[in-house]
């Protein structure tokens, strides 16, 4: 039965991907892409990769939809949407060849993977030293902490890139439009009820992340979603991009991570955790990263400043 389910899920994923590509206009493709993210999360779940499924559920089925629909709306408002976009055949051939090449290389890489347990035993050994029950967190912050550090900095760099598109004269302003809602309406009530639940779920995910599926990235995305919802419901405006509090929230994760790395350099290697304190240090990094990732993602969705600040 499990196999039948997996085959049906794969067929559905391929079908949705085809529908998103063949399209019935941009908006239809967008709706299919949102569904695609949801099905991919289910596929990860069926593969028992719960951590990845959590991240995909939060990013793919949640935040990406808001981002894409916002982009669609902005293009539409400027009448910049091509109603019937048809790429030149050369473009399509090259895109197709590129996809084939990447898919082929991935297939080769997977076929070339050594069989057996891989690095599982080594991970489980280190996991014991770090006192972490979740092997994914152990890998992310024990084995490849350097990668995780760079990833958190890449996110920050993306936000700097978005902010660099700020129109002349609006620097230091507020991102996005000021959202209005009927005070007693459905949208405002929804915006009041869901963010507290989102906050608790976000904190729960980062807390659970040391011993069970969860972690900073998943938690940060859920927290970002709570932030975005409060803004969409008109209950809370985005902060000015120069706000010191906001800057602190954006920086605390990567900064703490770098600090730990630098201190570790004195103990025997960059990012070597102080012996005996591995778990508290890793947990501190996780909590700080969750906050920074939340702030970064929420502001990435909001886009560059569009209104002068200081009016509040």
């Amino acid at each position, binding site marked *: 039965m499990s196999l039948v389910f997996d085959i049906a899920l794969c067929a559905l994923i391929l079908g949705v991907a085809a529908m998103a590509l063949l399209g019935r*206009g941009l908006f239809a493709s967008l709706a299919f892409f949102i569904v695609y993210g949801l099905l991919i999360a289910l596929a990860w779940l069926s593969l028992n990769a719960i951590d990845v499924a959590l991240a995909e559920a939060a990013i793919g089925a949640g935040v990406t939809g808001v981002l894409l629909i916002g982009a669609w709306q902005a293009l539409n408002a400027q009448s910049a949407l091509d109603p019937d976009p048809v790429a030149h055949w050369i473009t399509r051939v090259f895109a197709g060849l590129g996809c084939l090449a990447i898919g082929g290389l991935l297939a080769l890489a997977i076929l070339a993977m050594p069989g057996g347990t891989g690095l599982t035993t080594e991970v489980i050994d280190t996991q014991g030293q770090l006192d972490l029950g979740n092997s994914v967190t152990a890998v992310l912050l024990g084995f490849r902490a350097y990668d995780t550090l760079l990833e958190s900095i890449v996110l920050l760099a993306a936000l700097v890139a978005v902010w660099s598109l700020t129109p002349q004269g609006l620097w230091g302003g507020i991102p996005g439009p000021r959202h209005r809602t009927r005070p007693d309406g*459905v949208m405002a009530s*929804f915006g009041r009820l*869901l963010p507290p639940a989102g906050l608790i779920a976000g904190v729960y995910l980062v807390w659970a992340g040391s011993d069970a599926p969860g972690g900073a990235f998943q938690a940060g995305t859920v927290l970002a979603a709570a932030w975005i919802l409060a803004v969409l419901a008109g209950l809370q405006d985005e902060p000015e991009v120069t706000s010191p509090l906001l800057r602190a929230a954006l920086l605390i994760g990567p900064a703490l991570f770098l600090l730990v790395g630098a201190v570790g350099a004195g103990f025997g290697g960059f990012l070597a955790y102080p012996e005996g304190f591995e778990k508290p240090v890793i947990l501190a990094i996780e909590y700080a990263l969750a906050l920074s990732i939340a702030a970064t993602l929420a502001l990435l969705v909001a886009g560059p400043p569009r209104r002068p600040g200081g009016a509040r």
Partner: protein
Amino acid sequence: MTLIEILASACLAVGVFFFFAGTVGLLRFPDVHSRLHALTKADNLGLAFIVLGAGIHFGDVMIAAKLALVWFLAVFAAGAAAQLVARAALRTGDEP
């Protein structure tokens, strides 16, 4: 099969039935607003029975509480979305 298993299976069957009812409504009803009406009622009743079936299977109070929370959040989201999409559909009319 024990009694518990029969009970859980029956809940699942009813749940899947309501999911199908929602899809049939989505496919068969003639206009935007009646389609909206069909699916938001059916799919949440469907989810309720699936939550019930899973809760009986796990037989654990904490897990049941989490399942109830999931159901509550889903119903709340679907209700809010239905109301808002209906308003938005009034406004944009039959524009594709």
